[in-house]
C-alpha cells in the first residue's frame, strides 16, 4: 500500500506544500513527494530554502 501524502510548511511564511496537490505553477505535479523535489527548491512565496521546511499535520 502506498504511503499517505504528507504536508510540509515553510518556517518563514507558513506556505504549505501538500504532496497530494503538488504545485503545478512550480512544475511540481500532484502527487510529487517532498523527497523527490530538487534540493534547490525554494518556497514559492518567500524564497526560503527547502531545508527550512517542517513536516506538519493538518
Amino acid at each position, binding site marked *: 500500500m502506498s504511503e499517505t501524502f504528507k504536508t510540509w510548511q515553510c518556517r*518563514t511564511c*507558513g506556505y*504549505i506544500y501538500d504532496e497530494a496537490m503538488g504545485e503545478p505553477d512550480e512544475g511540481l505535479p500532484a502527487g510529487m513527494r517532498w523527497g523527490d523535489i530538487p534540493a534547490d527548491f525554494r518556497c514559492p*512565496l518567500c524564497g526560503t530554502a527547502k531545508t527550512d521546511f517542517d513536516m506538519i499535520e*493538518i
Partner: protein
Amino acid sequence: MIPQDIANTIVDPTAFGGSGKRVEDAFTWLRQEKPLSVAQPDGFDPFWVVTRHADILEVERQNDLFHNGDRATIVTPIELDQKVRMVMGGSPHLVRALVQMDNPDHAAYRRVTYGAFLPQNLKKLEGRIREIARGFIDHMASLGSCCDFATDVAFLYPLHVVMELMGVPESDEPRMLKLTQELFGNADAELSRSGNKPEDAAQALANLQGTVGEFMEYFNAITEDRRANPRDDLASVIANGQVFGAPLGVLEAMSYYIIAATAGHDTTSSTTAGAMWALADNPGEFAKVKANPALIAGLVEESIRWVTPVKHFMRTATSDAVLDGRIIRKGDWLMLSYPSGNRDESVFTDPFRFDIERSPNKHVAFGYGAHICLGQHLGRMEMRILWEELLPRLQSVELNGEPAYMDAAFVCGPKRVPISFRMQ
C-alpha cells in the same frame, strides 16, 4: 541619474492619487529606460530606484545585506527625517515594528505572533469570518442599488475581522479606522489628521506624532488589561509575549499593535475595493468568475497584484554589493517599488490587463524573503470568503461615478469606488 521630473513624481503622493496613472507612467518609463538608477527628488537624499521584479526579489532575499532599519523604511524628505531623529533620540523611526527591524530582533519579534497567522490556525476562524462577511453583504444589499463600495463595505469588513482578532471592541472600530486613514493618508487633504495637506515638515510630523500618540495611549491601556486578564486574542499574545526571555519592549509592543491595527486591515480593504473597481471596469472578468467560483482564488491573487497597496519599502546596503551589474555602496538607500515589479513586462504578459486567470501570478505585493507580509494568508482568506459569499448574490455591477485612489506614496488604495449594482 533619473530625470528630475520622474524623480519628483515617484515620491509625490498626488501622483499616486486619482487614477494613479501619473505614477504608473513614470515607473513604466523607468523600467524601460533606467530600471535600476539613482533618483534625488527635490528635498530628498539620493536613493536607488529598484523597478524590476527580479531585482526586487534579489534585494528582499538578502536581508542581511540590505537592512530595513538602518535608515527610514519609507521614503522621507530630509527635513522630516531630521525632525523625526530629533524627537526619537537619533532613530529615523517613529515606531519600531517588524518592518523597521533586522535580525536578530526581527526573527524574535516575528515569532511572537507567527503561529496566529499560519493557515492551519486561521482555518479555525473561517466560520466566524464568513459570518462577518455575510453581515456586510446584507448591509450592502440594504443600501439598494448604489453605494460607495470602498467606504460602505471594503473599509469595514477587514477592519471588523482584524479588530475582533485583536480583541478591540466593536465600538472602537470607527476610531481605529480614522487613525489608520490619518497615518497612511497624511498627505491627503481629505484624510489627514489636520484636515489639510501638511504645509511643511513640522505639520507632517505633528500629524504623525498625534496619530501615533493616540494609538499608543489606546494600546497601552489594552496591554495593562491583557496582562491582568489574558484572553484568547492577539492583544493578549502581544501583551504577554516574550523575546529573548523578557517581555516585548514598550515601543516595540506599541508598534506591534499599531501595525496590526492599521496595515492589518487597510491593505485588505484597499485590495477588495480595487477588485470591485476592476470588476466593474472589466465585465468579462466579472461574468467569468461569477459563472465559475473556482476562479475566485485567481481573482484574489490578481486583485492583490493589481492594487499592490504597499507602494514601496526602503532598504539600506550594509556593505558594498552588486545588483544587476551596478555597484551599490555601503549605506546606499534603495526604494523597492512593488507596483513597478508587479507591472514588469518581462514577468507578466500584458501586465496592464486585469486577468483573473493569470497563471503563474508571482507578484511581489506581499514582499519576499524574511520580511514577507505576516498577514498574507489572513488577507487572502478574508477576500476569498467575501467573494464566495458576494458573487452568488451580485447580479451586476457598474461604476457610478469617478473612483479615486488616495494621495499617498507609501500605503495607498482607493478612497472611493462608487458603484451601481443589482443583488439577490
